[in-house]
């Protein structure tokens, strides 16, 4: 049955069962506490009394017993005492019960013991123990249980309308619950279907962090945001790749077309140019793909402890000849407690790109300084140059793929170096920002101990 396959319906059934069970348990408890238990106590008391009276009868005979019964009936007690003593020939020796049934073998009797007092009839129900005495006499001793009887009566009366009311409550409650959950689930399902239908902007409506469903919705929305961002990034890459690759590709085609009819001398030149162009294309392609992979976290990065200080020194050392040739002072200031968690090769690549960039944009005689120090749980790398900086309105575009600052017109590059740095920073969940110094560009990169990305291969950082 389809209904049984619905979680909310099954939950409603469960609710109905639990609700009924709870009511049953409560009723049972009430019955036991206010009827069963007091009745048991009265019974126990009567058993004791009867046993004592019987002992008296054995010793003192009918007279003594009858006197004791009268005393008992006259005594003040929370429950009125009833009795009847019948001799073996049927003669009533003593009684304050109006009537009683013939001996039937039943030990416990319930007898109407209506009492007339001041002309009013009081209804009294008595619980009576029927005890045969030695010699054939019959002793009936009882106590008033009218209060218990009334409660029992009331409960029984209530049960008549309680049962239908319970059923109604159960079904209404179950239906409301089933509908509420069903509706929340539907909103999740609808959002998922919208996304499946190709509308990546579809989101689960969330009313704030109110309950589990809202939290689940928020989580799903975060997931959809991430997917949308990834898709968007892939789309942007393919757009810009198409755009940026077309130019060199058409140059390559032109060279190759000219090659068909070129003179031998010219042909050699064209071949070299075509090879260089294709090489450039391949490198650009590699760079774009690498960034896209890092951004989409396809790069199964293995984060491990990396001595960032040593890495920075290595990177500066690698670029030293370049700086020297341009008369730029390249200074590195590091301490020896700069262990971060990261991918060694990617970090080196990123730092190397940053240094390369700084040197390229710094005029001759300038300075590039690389500084790293520990701040609480992070290592902050600061790179400053004495170049022209970048117009403030373009700061935000630094690190965008194929973005090249106007100052970069005469400088080699694809506009991918900083895009890769950004991608690496993101992969390490480390804030990276560019600001204008006085003068020059200031890059601040805050790296910390990061947990390996969930679900990725790799080990938790140690040491």
């Amino acid at each position, binding site marked *: 049955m389809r209904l049984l396959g619905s979680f909310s319906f099954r939950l409603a059934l469960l609710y109905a069962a639990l609700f009924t069970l709870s009511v049953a348990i409560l009723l049972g408890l009430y019955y036991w506490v206010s009827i069963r238990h007091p009745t048991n106590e009265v019974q126990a008391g009567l058993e004791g009394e009867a046993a004592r009276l019987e002992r008296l009868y054995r010793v003192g005979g009918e007279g003594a017993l009858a006197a004791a019964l009268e005393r008992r009936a006259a005594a003040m007690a929370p429950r009125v005492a009833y009795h009847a003593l019948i001799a073996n020939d049927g003669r009533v020796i003593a009684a304050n019960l109006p009537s009683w049934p013939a001996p039937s073998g039943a030990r416990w009797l319930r007898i109407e013991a209506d009492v007339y007092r001041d002309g009013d009839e009081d209804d009294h129900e008595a619980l009576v123990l029927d005890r045969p005495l030695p010699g054939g006499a019959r002793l009936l001793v009882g106590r008033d249980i009218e209060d218990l009887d009334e409660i029992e009566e009331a409960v029984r009366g209530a049960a008549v309308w309680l049962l239908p009311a319970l059923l109604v409550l159960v079904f209404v409650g179950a239906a409301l619950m089933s509908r509420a959950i069903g509706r929340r689930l539907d909103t999740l399902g609808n959002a998922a279907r919208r996304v499946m239908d190709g509308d990546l902007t579809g989101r689960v409506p969330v009313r704030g962090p109110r309950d589990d469903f809202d939290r689940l919705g928020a989580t799903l929305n975060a997931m959809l945001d991430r997917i949308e961002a990834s898709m968007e990034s892939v789309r942007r890459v393919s757009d810009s790749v198409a755009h940026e690759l077309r130019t060199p590709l058409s140059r390559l085609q032109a060279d190759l077309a000219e090659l068909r009819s070129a003179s031998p001398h010219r042909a050699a030149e064209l071949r070299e140019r075509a090879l260089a162009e294709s090489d450039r294309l391949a490198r650009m392609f590699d760079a774009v793909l690498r960034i896209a992979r890092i951004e989409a976290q396809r790069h199964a990065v293995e984060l491990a402890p990396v001595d960032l200080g040593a890495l920075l020194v290595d990177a500066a050392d*690698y670029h030293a000849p370049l700086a020297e040739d341009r008369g730029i002072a390249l200074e590195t200031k590091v301490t020896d407690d700069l262990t971060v968690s990261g991918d060694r090769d*990617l970090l080196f690549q990123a730092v190397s790109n940053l240094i390369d960039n700084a040197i390229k944009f710094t005029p001759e005689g300038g300075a590039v300084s690389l500084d790293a120090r520990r701040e609480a749980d992070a290592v902050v790398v600061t790179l400053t140059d004495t170049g022209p900086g970048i117009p403030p309105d373009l700061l935000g575009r630094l690190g965008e793929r194929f973005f090249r600052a106007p100052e970069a017109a005469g400088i080699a590059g694809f506009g991918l170096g900083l895009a890769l740095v950004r991608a690496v920073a993101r992969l390490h969940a480390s804030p990276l920002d560019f600001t204008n110094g006085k003068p020059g560009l200031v890059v601040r990169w805050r790296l910390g101990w990061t947990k390996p990305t969930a679900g990725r291969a790799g080990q938790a950082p140690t040491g």
Partner: protein
Amino acid sequence: MRILLIEDDARVSAFVAKALREEGHLVEPIADGRAGLVRATSDRFDLIILDRMLPGLDGLKLLQALRATGDATPVLILSALGDTDERVRGLRAGGDDYLPKPFALSELVARVEVLGRRQPAAETSARIEIGDFALDAIARTVTRAGRRIDVTDREFRILTYLASHAGRVVTRSMLLEHVWDYHFDPQTNVIDQHLSRLRQKLEPAGAEPLIETVRGAGYRMRDR
């Protein structure tokens, strides 16, 4: 050298085979992974060039199978997957070197030379002497014509790598991988500047050049 070339792209295969034959090697091309594994295990080769993605059998699986038989023939992996992690995976599977596609032929030829002729052990001996040049790995000294030359740690490592492959072309990316020990793609090739500095120290005016530039390929240290 006898080289087994396992590559499914006919044009790349022909292109590589031709270049290697011109260098004087015996090349046996095979296009299928399974056939390649059978060939590799049934004969002795000095070097195997293996494409990462093959029909029939994945390149890395082939390599693992080959290594499982105890075969230690040097393997150079070619791959369109140029990522660092792909490289690591390739080397872990038992590859000796990894070259991403597209590659320059000169790069391939240089790597083949270095890989195929690799000495089994003690790749770098404690002392290397080439003409009037001497490098002592233990004392960490470099001398030319008996005169001691001061070099930085990095320069010493460059020299050690070049000298232990004297007579063979060493490409820029080989130097990056072995001397800098980071796998990265330099934005600007600063290696040339490192080398020219080193040369200035080693080859004062008038001295016989020790390290030569091989156009379009890399560097080579004289072996005599």
